[in-house]
């Protein structure tokens, strides 16, 4: 414990602190702009970090990482465009709150939830990292498949009352996820000979099209109806979050942070899955689940605390085992190695001071994120004052830039446009959009791990039962599906009477 205070001495030095603040600021901007991702922000800063001492370099990189995951919520809440994939679930509640004139409340909830989620995962990181990291090694392909299936049950909570349409959307998403190179045989599937589809449908343009462009098209309807110039996105709010409102979500915040940390620890799932799972669980445990989707602070507390908790969780296997859970931690791992530090158990023994400095820098990032975030939302919150006819083209331009910037290909602009149209049609026909996105995100995780498991077991399905972890998760998923089915039957019976 003394060691971590020594770490704070390094992480709170002037140079480390300013590097951290620079990282957080850049992170928030990158996060808030759709398509400029946390990964790009951190990758851009890597060459800059070469010349810095380790703790200072990591202050900057971790600041960017945490800032970007948080920043995604700002645009999600204010203009209904998730700035990062991690904020995709925040779009389900944020814009509705903005429309109600409660944007400041929503933004403050997102900021506090992000801070609390990140801090929670940081505490887990410094207290039980080695223990959890070795437990995470028990996760193989069978267990990843089970986690993906569990995450897919969340489709149920997005589709209640409309199960057929929800499932249709989810299956459409799963189909879209099969486009590209077959993960096992290497064959090309459903690409129709289009080279741009060889790597599959890119996630960011699909996400931005589905949630943001579709909304823009919907707003265009008003323009054609002659309701030109009305501020549709919401009113400027001055009413902040009260402590009581935050305290009411204590269990929710704790559960979502724990879920996020857990999902961060097991490699290869990530923040996008975490926020949907936390959202689904928050709704399942909520006293007022019917309010979800109409603009509730509960949903934002769940999604934002969970996706920021992923950051600390993902650092656990990276620091302890040298195993990166996602692209971003892989970059951080590279940065660590360029500094001449090899992650793993020896790192803690040989460079304890640096490790503690890095851990402390993570906490400093959380505090800076809270402080800078509270400033940023007051500035950016004014966006809702911009009249729709000016705001819509800006949103659309940002969407286009973001879609293009991810892979630098014009094809992705077509993907964005196609998903925008699809999203619009889904809105008009009453199909829920989140199941489609869940299918696209989780399809590849579920498929490649399922087939990998079978390749290792020589097509013997019993491995899913003999692995205790996979079996437990699959049984829980099955029970949830049965419960959803039962609720649905009861509902249709009662509505018939």
């Amino acid at each position: 414990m003394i060691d971590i205070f020594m770490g704070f001495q390094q992480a709170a030095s002037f140079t480390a602190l300013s590097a951290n603040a620079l990282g957080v600021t850049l992170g928030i901007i990158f996060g808030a702009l759709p398509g400029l991702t946390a990964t790009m922000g951190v990758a851009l800063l890597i060459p800059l970090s070469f010349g810095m001492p380790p703790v200072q370099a990591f202050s900057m990189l971790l600041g960017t990482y945490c800032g970007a995951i948080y920043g995604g919520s700002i645009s999600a809440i204010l203009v209904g465009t998730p700035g990062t994939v991690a904020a995709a679930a925040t779009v389900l509640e944020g814009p509705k709150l903005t429309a109600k004139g409660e944007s400041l409340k929503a933004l403050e909830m997102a900021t506090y939830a992000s801070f609390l989620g990140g801090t929670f995962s940081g505490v887990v990181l410094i207290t039980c990292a080695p223990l959890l990291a070795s437990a995470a090694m028990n996760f193989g392909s069978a267990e990843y498949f089970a986690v993906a299936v569990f995450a897919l049950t969340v489709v149920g909570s997005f589709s209640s009352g409309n199960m057929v349409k929800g499932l249709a959307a989810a299956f459409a998403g799963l189909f879209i996820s099969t486009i590209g190179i077959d993960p096992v045989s290497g064959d090309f599937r459903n690409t129709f000979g289009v080279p741009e589809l060889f790597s599959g449908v890119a996630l960011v343009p699909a996400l931005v099209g589905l949630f943001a462009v579709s909304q823009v098209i919907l707003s265009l309807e008003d323009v054609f109806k002659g309701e030109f110039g009305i501020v549709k996105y919401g009113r400027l709010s001055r009413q902040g979050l009260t402590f009581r409102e935050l305290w009411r979500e204590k269990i929710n915040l704790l559960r979502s942070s724990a879920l996020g940390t857990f999902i961060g620890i097991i490699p290869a799932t990530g923040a996008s899955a975490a926020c949907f799972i936390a959202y689904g669980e928050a709704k399942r445990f909520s006293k007022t689940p019917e309010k979800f989707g109409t603009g509730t602070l509960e949903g934002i507390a769940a999604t934002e605390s969970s996706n920021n908790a992923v950051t600390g969780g993902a650092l656990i296997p990276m620091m302890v085992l040298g195993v990166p859970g996602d692209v971003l931690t892989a970059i951080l791992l590279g940065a660590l190695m360029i500094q001449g530090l090899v992650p793993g158990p020896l790192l803690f023994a040989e460079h304890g001071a640096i490790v503690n400095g890095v851990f402390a820098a993570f906490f400093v990032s959380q505090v800076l994120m809270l402080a800078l975030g509270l400033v940023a939302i007051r500035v950016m919150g004014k966006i809702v004052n911009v009249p729709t006819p000016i705001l819509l083209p800006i949103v659309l331009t940002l969407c286009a830039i973001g879609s293009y910037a991810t892979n630098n290909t014009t094809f992705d602009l077509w993907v964005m446009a196609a998903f925008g149209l699809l999203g619009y049609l889904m809105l008009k026909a009453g199909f829920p959009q989140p199941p489609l996105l869940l299918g696209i995100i989780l399809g590849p995780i579920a498929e490649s791990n399922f087939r990998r498991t079978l390749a290792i077991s020589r097509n013997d399905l019993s491995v899913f039962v003999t692995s205790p972890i996979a079996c437990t998760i699959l049984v829980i998923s099955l029970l949830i599906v049965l419960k959803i089915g039962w609720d649905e039957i009861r509902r249709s019976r009662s509505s018939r009477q």
Partner: protein
Amino acid sequence: MKRRLFISACALLALAMAFVTPARQADAAYPDRPITLIMPFGTGNAPDTTARIIAEYFQSKHGITMLIVSKPGGSGIPGLIDLLKAKPDGYTLCLTSANALTVVPQVKPCGFTYKDFTSVAQLAVFTMGWGVKSDSGITSVDDLMAKAKAHPKKYSLGSPGSLTAQRFFHAQLMKHFPDSDLPYVPYDGGAELVTALLGNHISVAYTPIPNMLPHGDAIRIIAVSSRERDPNYPDVPTFAELYGKDLVFESIYGVVAPKNIPADRLQRLEELFKEALADPGVKEKMANLYITPGYLSGKEFGDVLKSYNDFFADPIKQYLEQNK
């Protein structure tokens, strides 16, 4: 108020644009504007970091900006298709692998072969090795193959990628052991694969050894598929020593440019990359990532590509016939 907001919104847009649009200026001495380097393997892995280390050197030493444009996925095909369309003016390059240039186009016609590009420089060669858990009891390739024969359905080999040269290398090697049960299981990346190996979910990992080196004694390398033994593991035999000299496969990375790039610009680029890879600072950073610079001139790199292409021609033909 509204006006100010509008202006700040425009400024924000301009800022966002700055991240994606390189500045254009009139031509003078080459290179007088940023060089775009297409990076088809995703952000943050060894080739990407190598590119960033070199870019930093170009910037600080020569004031040359090299923009690294990430275009991941599709086995590296989309990135090379972009290069195919680029002007042969020396301002668009691609850092790619021998695998993407020679093996992928043979398996799947994708509009180019390695002959459609001008090779600029080879940058690095990664030794590929077979790693097992040290506590697995596997001592050598022969031992592994004997165990895989005695206990079918127990052992599997994991490797990153489903459409890669190592898959064909594995197929070639298994011809020596027709009775051993050791299927090829593709993983998404080297790091994920090493995690699976450490967690006992896979018995052998076939990946560049820089992925395994950080884990020290936990992983034992039983053989390497390079031409020569790896200096990090002088005691580990090569497959060529063990089972025949044609069993060689190395993961080779280099830079290519569009065909018909002016000879003087090609020469300048060769000089720049050669100088960067000889720089002690660059070498040290690469060494920290366990990457050994392996500079070869454009012509030499072209020869390497040709022999690589020819080596895999037969196994790929056989594979395609079997999978018709």
